[in-house]
């Protein structure tokens, strides 16, 4: 795993654009996967994380 990070760091010397793209793809990919995993875990805890009645709804137009 550490070899991947070393390789991305060394890539900067030969291909800056690819280095930037890999940073972006790694962070975005990891963020997406973690968001989905976290969603599953939160639901398993029994916490209701769906839509709920917001306290500001009576101040919005059309209420």
């Amino acid at each position, binding site marked *: 795993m550490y070899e991947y*990070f070393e390789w991305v*760091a060394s890539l900067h*010397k030969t291909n800056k654009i690819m*280095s930037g793209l890999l*940073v972006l793809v790694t*962070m975005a990919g*990891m*963020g997406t996967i973690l968001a989905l995993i*976290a969603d599953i875990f939160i639901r398993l805890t029994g916490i209701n994380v769906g839509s709920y009645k*917001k306290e500001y709804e009576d101040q919005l137009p059309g209420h």
Partner: protein
Amino acid sequence: MIHMPLSGVDMMWWPLLLIGFTVGVVGGYFGLGGAWLVTPALNIFGFPMVYAVATDMAHVAGKSIVSSFRHWKFGHVSAAIAFFMLIGTFSGVEVGAQCLMWLNRKGLAGPVVRYIYMVLLFCMFFFMLKEYLGARKIEKETGQAVKDIVGNRFSRWLTDTLKDIPPVFYCKVTRMKFSLWSCVFVGVVCGFVAGILGIGGGLLRVPSLIYILGMPTKVAVGTDLFEVMFSGAYGGFTYGVKGKVELIAACIMLLGAAVGAQFGTVCTKYVYGITIRLVYAIACFFAFASVVLKQVAWFYTQSYDKAVKALLKADGITGDKANIITGSITPEGIEKMRHYILDVSKKPEWWSDYQMNLFYTNLGGIVVLTAACGLTAFILYLLFKGIAKERAEIRAAQAQGQAKL
């Protein structure tokens, strides 16, 4: 110990995880966290500032996906407003960055930027705290809870003035009509300030969405985090191209942030918007305090900074490498500075100025870290209190249902 391949820093993994967790909680709760929390925290643990800024930007790109996903599920995100703001943000950032370059050429960048930052932070702290105390006063007088304040005179005037200037769109989340131009205007203003101050923009975007567009607090937080996904991605990419992102550090922080963000975002379900504003005001105050301490530290550098950089240049050390040495708070960096100040320049008065600089820099970092830990603890307390109350209500409703049967 983890070795950072680009900056050469060796760091333990657990401070990165803890920083990520804290900024995940705080960021998920009110959309703040990057510039004022992560970069000083990383700097205290030995990261050179330029790598701290870049690594933070990259991790924000991932963290904001986690936070936005949860806020989206709660119905706190207006993607349309976020997209239109983004159009303004990119142009605003470019203009702000050009102004910063101009100030830099005049030699005014450092102090001017810090003074603007201080004034901005103090104004936001003062205004939001005044608003919160005003809401509490109204509660005492009327006996009715003030849960959030949606809109104000200026936002209503802006919406009414621009609502007939096409293109106009209807936002389902806030049930309001917005002119595209008002969203672009907010984006330009936030982008300009972000460009000139060198910050991520969340600090100003949330209040701008609340006070200029008149959005509810939670929708402002969710929409801000959604936009940060794109501006963070752009920042991560550009800093990645520049070779300043320590990807392994960003990934470890993201692991912590992914957990912390769940706590911070879920907590918004259990608190009122006005409470989010109070916590935001407190965060602005501590950010203001840390910038003041940084400014005091900067005053002490003026006696020796130019001379030491000239000596470093004579030894072939320039640019980022020179800034890393003069700005370092690690034992190795301090030893190098001791050599140039005492052994080479033979100036003990510079050495005492350098030590005062270190003292105020460290104090600023400690203030921010302590504030972040305190805010995290408070947010977690609100979260668990809210969950306990919800479960008690569910049990009571079930018991009532069974009694009726």
